[in-house]
């Protein structure tokens, strides 16, 4: 059991930040996203079969996080509790020194990017986050979401078009 707990703690340390980030991208209410991320790890703890290494744990966590966020979006109870759509409050985790890139992106641009991201369909948000934030390949995204690579490409391109409007870079 102690060995199992150690394994779990190692996995938690390695993936917790990534899973929280993914949940925060897919759910617009940060406390809700944090709770879902915590649930993902609780589920991992309770699901013994995932420890047999037939499925890579990283993929399992990602898959479960996406599904948990999807379920949460559908939940009426949470829908009622959510506040008005909001972008992530960066002040929650202040960085001591802004990078030059951070300085160069105006707050107006940031707000527009978040606004456009929130208006993407849930599927487009998932595809965009997995491809461009998590850096997964189109094939990996398709496998994680259980859709075809063609469908991933279609959703991704629409999302890219939509997001670029926020920057005025649409051709």
């Amino acid at each position, binding site marked *: 059991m102690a060995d199992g*707990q150690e394994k*779990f*703690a190692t996995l*938690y*340390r390695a993936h*917790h*930040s990534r899973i*929280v*980030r993914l949940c*925060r*991208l897919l759910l617009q209410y940060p*406390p809700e996203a*944090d709770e879902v991320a*915590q649930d993902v*790890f*609780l589920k991992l*703890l309770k699901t013994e079969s995932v420890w047999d290494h037939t499925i890579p744990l990283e993929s399992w966590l990602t898959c479960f996080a996406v599904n948990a966020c999807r379920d949460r979006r559908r939940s009426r109870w949470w829908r009622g509790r959510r506040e008005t759509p909001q*972008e*992530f409050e*960066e002040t*929650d*985790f202040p*960085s001591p020194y802004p990078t030059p*890139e*951070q300085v160069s*992106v105006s707050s107006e*641009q*940031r707000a527009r*990017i*978040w606004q456009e*991201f929130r208006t993407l369909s849930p599927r487009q948000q998932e595809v965009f*986050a997995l491809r*461009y*934030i998590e850096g997964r390949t*189109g094939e990996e995204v398709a496998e994680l979401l259980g859709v075809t690579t063609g469908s991933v*490409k279609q959703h*991704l*391109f629409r999302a*890219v*078009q939509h*997001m*670029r409007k*926020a*920057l005025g*870079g*649409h*051709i």
Partner: protein
Amino acid sequence: MIRCLNEKQLWELYEAGESTLERAYGRAHLDSCDACQWHYQHLVRDLELIGQVLQEATNLSRDTVQIQGVTKSPPLPLAS
């Protein structure tokens, strides 16, 4: 390929990476056309910027999450 590339074709080249045979004609045009180069660089810059903004805002600086003074730790297994 003589005609300039549209947004979708440029994006497909971006997605395909450097060395795909199927996109060879598009890549050849891109390499030789200043207008398409300009549009392509804008696409790359936009995607990097969007990724950067979304990533920064949701990045956690520590292994544990601190919200309103409370530190979340790994969930403990329930006693069976």
